[in-house]
């Protein structure tokens, strides 16, 4: 028996991979009592319509996020460096999801 009883389950972020070869995409969040149940909840809540072949869950408090206050120092410097964009390549027509 655990000593501590919390009223609310912790929040988890859910990532689903749609099919082989694609990357995991953040689809939403949910509450669950532990990691294993979070995976099952994610299966029930986010893959009911045949969306996934793989699921990742991670506790939301384990994610370190950037702050809106840091937006300019973090992201603005890359806005005018066009040479960093791979726009000088032609992508073959049959390469999807780019």
């Amino acid at each position, binding site marked *: 028996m655990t000593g501590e009883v919390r009223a609310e389950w912790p929040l988890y972020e859910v990532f689903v991979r749609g099919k082989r070869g694609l990357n995991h995409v953040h689809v939403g969040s949910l509450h669950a009592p532990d990691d294993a149940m979070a995976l*099952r*909840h994610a299966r029930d809540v986010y893959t009911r319509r*045949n*969306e996934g072949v793989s699921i990742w869950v991670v506790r939301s408090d384990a994610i370190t996020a950037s702050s809106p206050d840091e937006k300019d120092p973090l992201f603005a410097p890359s806005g005018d460096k066009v040479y960093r964009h791979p726009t000088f390549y032609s*992508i073959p027509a*049959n390469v999807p*999801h780019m």
Partner: protein
Amino acid sequence: MPDGTVPEHSTETAHAGPAAHGTDHDNAYAGLLVNDAHWAFGTDFEDPLAGVDTTVPDGVEPSVLAAYCLMLGDDALVASERISEWCSRAPDLEEDIALANIALDLLGQARLLLARAAAADPSVVPALPGDSPVPDEDRLAFFRDDRQFRNVRLAELPNGDFGETITRILLLSIWRLALFERLTGSRDAVLAAVAAKGVKELTYHRDFAGRWFLTLAQGTDESRRRVTAALTDLMPYWAELFGTHDVEAAAAASGVGVDPGQVAGEADAVLDQVLAVSGVDRPEAAPRAGVRGRTGRDGLHTEALSRLLAETQSVARAHPRGRW
């Protein structure tokens, strides 16, 4: 690549259609291009009975096959209706959806099994006015009385708390999974296909319920008290699951069904395993008697079933010509 080009080869002429996948080694992306309009969501659903031969196998009495399908179908239908009662009432949104998923899986099994019963022996289907558009499986679900239902009584008992529902799903899924694993070898191609699909669903139901049973048993004093009380209340209905009815014996003898008595040992072992890790003793429970030895499989139910049917059937019965 400083010159701004990528190697070009024959990919311009590569096919994106499914037929080309087997031989198209030039294009690593070909497998990603199926149903590409919704590429973020898999939409490749399979019809579980596509291409399945629906003729009754040689040497099988159609009435036995139909009665056997009604038993398994009614178990799923009634359990599904009970679990559906949790919609909007579960302890948490996530559990609400999980229970609804389980109920829908069982409803899908019920639909296929009732349809199979009707196809094997049309005389089991209740008669409706000649111009009624109600399909056979709906006639069986909505136009039979409680004495004509063949489900085990464990499926029909009124809902208790969340711990009671978890315990009941655990007991039912342990038993049904053991049956369905054997049923995949049925001589009836439809039953074999239904079982193959159902095994995956029931494996998840058992995992979900077993995990929750353990969590509740090892949780707080209150959660443990509730889940052990539920087990004490439900275990008297456990023995009924393994009593072999004449129809089940005949279906097993002709190679289309499974004798539930044959899975008792395996089911007991699985249940004992869950109870052991949960630290819960198995209650000593005398089997709940039927009426002169007759129980759910004989059409003799608890009064809870007639109330459940009154609620679920009233709209369909008021509109026998209804189109839904």
